[in-house]
């Protein structure tokens, strides 16, 4: 049968130019700044996982006799407003401080990618509807949505994370929709369609891997923003609730110490947030540059 | 009895320009020398990287930051490099540049009227209504009717060809003595090219302006310029009267350029192309003729040293074998020797 022969030829001729460098290659390409940031992030992730285990002292048990005592021997960062060891509380707090943004990013990525790919693949009506919907969603600042969610569903990390995921999703969707549209119009996609590949398999096996570097870069940058927003919400008392350990909560709890001249606990928590956010920002920007250059 | 020639309007004397690229200084022009007399049109022809645009920019003092310039550019006898402040502004009134891509070179957020009259109002102190009147008149000269309305429009409302005419008109408003036209029609489509070229040529002659016309098209330069200069790898390799350039080139490169142009009147099996790729100045070898690697006539003397410009039959040529090759470089003969050899 003559129909069997042409298809593989087309496939060979119009083969996708997949520039998959592999994770390690991408990382190396981010330069010194990028790799240092990645190291910092790795360290904090490890702490997030084993934090409560390596904390030298109990992070939640109050000891009112030691309220706001400054740094001493084994208590490197001193005591907080309820006499707890600041360092231990920071280590324990890493967990919820990192988990929240992770949930937000995963949520935003899942919804955003799905919508973007559907919009780019189907184009036409589906695309217009989705794009208009996204445009409208841009009007909602993330924190506002989270506050609304807290008022409706009660304060807590879950409600806040879901709200932020919804608020961030349009940014992911917009960037990915653009990239996916560009991939969609490449000749190799037409070749695959001609061969009878299903829409899902083309999307999953070809389009998504090609826009993957962009996705990773966006997710990294977004993690930083989510961390700031969630810390702010916990600070406002609408996220993680005390006495659970969390960097945003720590700032709120120890705020009273600042006018009294004991800024260290709040400052230490703030510093942790800033360092991690800067690391994510730098890494994310470098990855973004790479992803752009590869297109 | 010879009458002493009047001082040329523009003299470029041993101009060498280095540009900082990726940390090092790279040569883009090497010992470029040429002259343009008042009212004379000189064509400057070359491929990309030959340095023709850079020459014009050097004359107009538009080189990028960090450029190192040695040699001299003299205008009406005065050193252009020494000008500053009011003197420099006056110079810029007398030397007008027309750029290649009009859409990129006109500010998109200001109206046409503003673009055209800015120099008049700022440098020459012409009051706005008078400046607009002159601009509208000049638009008529370049073939744009309804000048008043056009002056109120924005650049994106005009086509590429019209915008280039506006650029030409704007250049002429300050009553310059020298026009530097940097590939003014390359970015336009073919029909528009012809129209704009005609306008440029007419107006230049009408106002008696000198012009350096930069192009990669040897025939085009020969058509409207009195003399033609050919550049290669940052150097002048030939200067010749345009009428003689085609029939009697003095340098193998010029001959190759002329031969490479597809001629509708003749048939050929393959397009004649020059093997290899054009070099930029910084890639040129220091101790031999830059064109030697690609030249079908290259011989040992060519690789011994960088050739000097020598005078030959009223023109200049930077070819060691120029006098021997005379006649052999004629079109037809050159093609035959290429396809045979």
């Amino acid at each position: 049968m003559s129909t069997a022969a042409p298809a593989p030829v087309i496939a060979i001729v119009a083969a996708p130019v997949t520039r998959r460098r592999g994770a390690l290659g991408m990382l190396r390409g981010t330069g010194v700044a990028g790799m240092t940031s990645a190291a910092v992030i790795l360290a904090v992730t490890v702490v997030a996982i084993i934090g409560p285990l390596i904390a030298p002292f109990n992070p939640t048990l109050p000891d009112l006799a030691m309220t706001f005592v400054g740094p001493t021997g084994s208590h490197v960062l001193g005591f907080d407003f309820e006499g707890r060891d600041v360092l231990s509380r920071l280590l324990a707090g890493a967990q919820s401080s990192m988990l929240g943004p992770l949930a937000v990013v995963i949520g935003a990525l899942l919804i955003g990618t799905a919508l973007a790919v559907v919009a780019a693949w189907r184009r036409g009506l589906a695309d217009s509807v989705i794009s208009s919907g996204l445009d409208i969603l841009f009007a909602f600042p993330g924190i506002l949505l989270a506050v609304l969610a807290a008022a409706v569903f009660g304060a807590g990390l879950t409600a806040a994370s879901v709200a932020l995921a919804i608020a961030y999703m349009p940014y992911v969707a917009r960037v990915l929709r653009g990239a996916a549209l560009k991939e969609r119009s490449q000749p190799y996609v037409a070749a695959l369609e001609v061969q009878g590949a299903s829409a899902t398999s083309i999307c999953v096996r070809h389009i998504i891997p090609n826009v993957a570097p962009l996705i990773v870069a966006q997710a990294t940058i977004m993690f930083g923003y989510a961390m700031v927003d969630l810390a702010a919400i916990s600070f406002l008392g609408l996220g993680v609730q005390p006495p659970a350990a969390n960097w945003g909560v720590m700032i709120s709890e120890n705020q009273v110490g600042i006018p009294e001249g004991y800024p260290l606990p709040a400052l230490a928590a703030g510093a942790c947030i800033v360092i991690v956010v800067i690391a994510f920002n730098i890494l994310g920007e470098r990855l973004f540059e790479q992803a752009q250059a590869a297109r | 009895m010879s009458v002493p020639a009047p001082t040329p309007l523009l003299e470029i004397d041993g101009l060498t320009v280095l540009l900082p690229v990726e940390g090092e200084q790279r040569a883009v022009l090497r010992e470029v020398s040429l002259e343009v007399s008042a009212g004379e049109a000189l064509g400057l022809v070359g491929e990309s990287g030959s340095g023709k645009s850079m020459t014009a920019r050097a004359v107009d003092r538009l080189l990028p930051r960090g450029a190192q310039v040695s040699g001299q550019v003299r205008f009406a006898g005065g050193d252009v490099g020494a000008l500053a402040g009011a003197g420099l502004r006056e110079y810029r009134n007398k030397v007008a540049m027309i750029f290649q891509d009009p859409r990129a070179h006109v500010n998109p957020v200001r109206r046409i009227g503003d673009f055209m009259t800015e120099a008049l109002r700022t440098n020459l102190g012409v009051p706005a209504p008078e400046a607009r009147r002159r601009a509208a008149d000049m638009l008529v000269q370049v073939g744009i009717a309804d000048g008043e309305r056009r002056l109120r429009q924005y650049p994106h409302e005009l086509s590429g060809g019209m915008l280039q005419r506006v650029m030409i008109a704007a250049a002429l408003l300050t009553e310059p003595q020298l026009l530097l036209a940097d590939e003014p029609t390359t970015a336009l489509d073919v029909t528009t090219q012809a129209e704009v070229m005609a306008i440029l040529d007419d107006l230049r002659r009408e106002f008696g302006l000198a012009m350096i016309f930069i192009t990669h098209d040897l025939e085009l330069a020969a058509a409207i310029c009195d003399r033609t200069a050919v550049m290669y790898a940052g150097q002048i390799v030939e200067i010749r009267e345009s009428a003689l350039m085609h029939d009697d080139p003095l340098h193998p490169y010029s001959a190759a350029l002329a031969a490479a142009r597809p001629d509708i009147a003749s048939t050929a099996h393959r397009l004649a192309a020059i093997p290899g790729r054009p070099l930029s100045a910084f890639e040129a070898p220091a101790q031999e003729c830059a064109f030697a690697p690609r030249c079908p006539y290259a011989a040992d003397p060519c690789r011994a040293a960088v050739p000097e410009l020598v005078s030959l039959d009223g023109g200049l040529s930077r070819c060691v074998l120029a006098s021997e090759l005379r006649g052999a470089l004629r079109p037809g003969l050159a093609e035959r020797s290429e396809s045979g050899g």
Partner: protein
Amino acid sequence: MLLASLLVASFVIFAALYLAPGNPITALSGGRSIPASSLRILEARYHLNKPFFTQYWYWLDGALHGNLGLSITLRENVSTLIGSRIWTTAGLVLYASLIILVLGIGLGVLAGLRPGILDTSVLVTSAISAAVPSFVAAIVLTTLFAVQLRWFPALGNGTSFLSNLRHFTLPAIALALSSLAIVARVTRAAIREEADREHVQTAISRGIPGRQLIRRHILRNAAIPITTISGITIASLIAVAAVVETFFSLNGLGAYLVQAAQDKDLAVVQGISLVLVTAFVVINMLVDLAYAVLDPRVALGSRAS
């Protein structure tokens, strides 16, 4: 398009009442038990026995006429409660915006026009401050300027205009800091980009003097991206103001919103959310307008982002 956003946003805010677990009555009362007479008042006031969209219409209509319902906790009209606090928030956001515009654009322009030490230092400091969230900046500012140096008060509103200025300075700086960094960077990049454009070469070749060149060809063209980023960052201040107000115990809408959310006083939350989202949309519309004015190539209603 922005008006559509506003409409949909208002719908979402309204519908929050129904998303809450339990029935609307529970949500409105915040889970408190209330006497039957108050129940009937609530039912009547919120038209709870009417169909969903009719209720929405009543609510929206009421909102447009200044009636935003009743606060369960304080038993006052939401609109009155908002009215007394709106000037605090407006003042704070205005103060911060001024800082962002003057310092952010100013530093960005200087850094963009002059390569050198100023440029590098602006670049470095902006990279760091862009990552510092407002509440962390608030900690540092308070520690340094309020506690150590005692230049500014640490908390609270002021009583007169001048004392308000003193009380609002640290909060405004905390609010403005990270946005200021972003605006400075974008401004610098925009100026750099414009200075390299070909039309600037044309102007130089015609002998346009330096000052005029910068003003009419570089700044004027860079104004487009600068306005866009300034508008976007100022709009985002509206949400972050809540955090700063809470930290500095300022009596503004943001702090009150947070309070009401904790108290589950839904009517207040809805009312303030509506006001804030409206302000957000209005600012975005102003940016669109400015964009259309500044760039003649763009038709009104579109914004090439």
